[in-house]
């Protein structure tokens, strides 16, 4: 090898100028093509292709087994710490990440068996006063990354970089099967017009649901026997959730006290300003055809939770969660650094889209997982399992659950402003 390296004669040949020129043209053409398709790349069916896009650092991260790393991280942080070490170790963590130990409940650090326990800590009763006059409050402690209006069904991630609202919430195109859903379950998925995404998410016929009319997915009126068979199939599906992509199950947590439930539902309905008679009239006029109510717009806001922040999330308003869509995806970091570099970050990562309605129409809340916090808990959804082992399904695949059994009045899971909903766990 040394001989070959040192003794092989090198002969230089001049390349014809034309070859060099062609090469330059080809490079320029490639650059231009990339530039023009930078915003949206569509497949043959017109559906945006969600793929890893960004500088080399992003591709290096994409090559790492992030999901496995996240689960190992979670396992390590679930290991029980010796009692004598807990106050020291947790104080070091709290100092490093800026946790306020004065507001935690319980205040005794020895009560937290592991770092994972401390990470999912509770706060004292009045640690977070809720603005009584606000129609929309922060669901979590964190930093506002971005906010604005949704334009052309695209949500801006950072300035000049956006992602598809359809991809974030999961909507299919007319006449096409939902993307990457097992063929045997395709017929069970909702299929809607591109511009009617809001219908799927409950904007128009959410009014119908409020007053107990037909379901947005299935327009035929429910009969007692059909309801019974749906309930039976829901229970069967719930036991087999990870295997059945595209199945809709009823994941409502059974209510123990009907009177208490009704009082809670009535309270949420009151907060939402529901007036059944008026809503019935309005919905019959509009007929459930438009996507957003006239005079309304779609808004978005993104809140980033840093590692030291309180990691439970609360309801941002009085609303009814009708369904959740669990997207199994990657677990990239969602730090502002990555948000500025990785295109489609929020639609690549594992997330749980909670979709429903509030007094002004559609309302959606999407907790997005990250490498260190891959697990998302929803208090009223015991069937939900996130960051589990197994093959990752293609981007865009989701499993859906409906919460119609949670409330006999509102046909979904009613939530009051600032009511605790769930949280993020380590790993």
């Amino acid at each position, binding site marked *: 090898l040394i001989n070959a390296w040192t003794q092989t004669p090198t002969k230089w040949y001049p390349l014809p100028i034309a070859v060099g020129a062609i090469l330059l043209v080809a490079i320029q053409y490639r650059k231009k093509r990339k530039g023009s398709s930078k915003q949206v790349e569509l497949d043959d069916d017109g559906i945006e292709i969600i793929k890893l896009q960004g500088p080399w650092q992003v591709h290096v991260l994409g090559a790492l087994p992030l999901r496995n790393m996240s689960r190992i991280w979670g396992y390590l942080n679930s290991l029980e710490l010796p009692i004598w070490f807990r106050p020291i170790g947790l104080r070091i963590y709290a100092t490093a990440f800026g946790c306020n130990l004065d507001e935690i409940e319980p205040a005794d650090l020895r009560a937290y068996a592991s770092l994972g326990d401390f990470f999912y800590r509770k706060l004292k009763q009045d640690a*977070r*006063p*809720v*603005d009584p*006059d*606000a*129609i*929309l*409050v*922060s*669901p*979590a*402690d*964190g*930093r*506002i*990354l*971005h*906010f604005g209006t949704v334009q052309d069904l695209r*949500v801006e991630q950072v300035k000049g970089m956006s992602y598809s*609202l359809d991809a*974030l*919430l999961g909507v299919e195109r007319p006449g096409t099967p939902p993307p990457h859903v097992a063929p045997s379950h395709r017929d069970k998925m909702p299929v809607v017009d591109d511009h009617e995404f*809001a219908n799927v998410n409950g*904007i128009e016929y959410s009014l119908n649901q409020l007053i107990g009319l037909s379901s947005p997915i299935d327009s035929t009126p429910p009969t007692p026997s059909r309801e019974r068979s749906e309930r039976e199939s829901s229970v069967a599906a719930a036991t087999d959730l990870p295997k059945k992509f595209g199945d809709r199950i009823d994941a409502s947590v059974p209510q123990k006290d009907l009177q208490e439930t009704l009082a809670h539902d009535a309270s949420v309905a009151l907060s939402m300003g529901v007036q059944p008679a008026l809503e019935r009239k309005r919905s019959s006029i509009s007929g459930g055809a438009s996507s*957003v*109510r006239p*005079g*309304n*717009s*779609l*808004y*978005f*806001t*993104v*809140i*980033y*939770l840093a590692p030291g922040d*309180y*990691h439970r*999330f*609360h309801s*941002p308003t009085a609303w009814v969660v009708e369904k959740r869509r669990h997207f199994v995806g990657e677990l990239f970091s*969602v730090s502002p650094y990555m948000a500025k570099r990785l295109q489609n970050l*929020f639609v690549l990562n594992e997330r749980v889209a909670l979709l429903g309605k*509030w007094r*002004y*129409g*559609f*309302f*959606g*809340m*999407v*907790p*997005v*997982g*990250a490498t260190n*916090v891959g697990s998302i808990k929803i208090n009223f959804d015991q069937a939900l399992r996130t960051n589990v082992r197994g093959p990752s399904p293609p981007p865009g695949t989701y499993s859906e659950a409906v919460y119609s059994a949670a409330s006999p009045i509102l046909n979904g899971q009613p939530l009051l402003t*600032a009511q605790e909903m769930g949280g*993020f766990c380590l790993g």
Partner: protein
Amino acid sequence: STIVLVFEAPSDEFEFTIKAGDKVKVGQRLGDL
């Protein structure tokens, strides 16, 4: 971790009461009509 909120509200009336980069706490006002 991150939370994305997407919601419908009256176009002319709703406005955010926050700025990008603001630190927020649970229960703090985000927007108003």
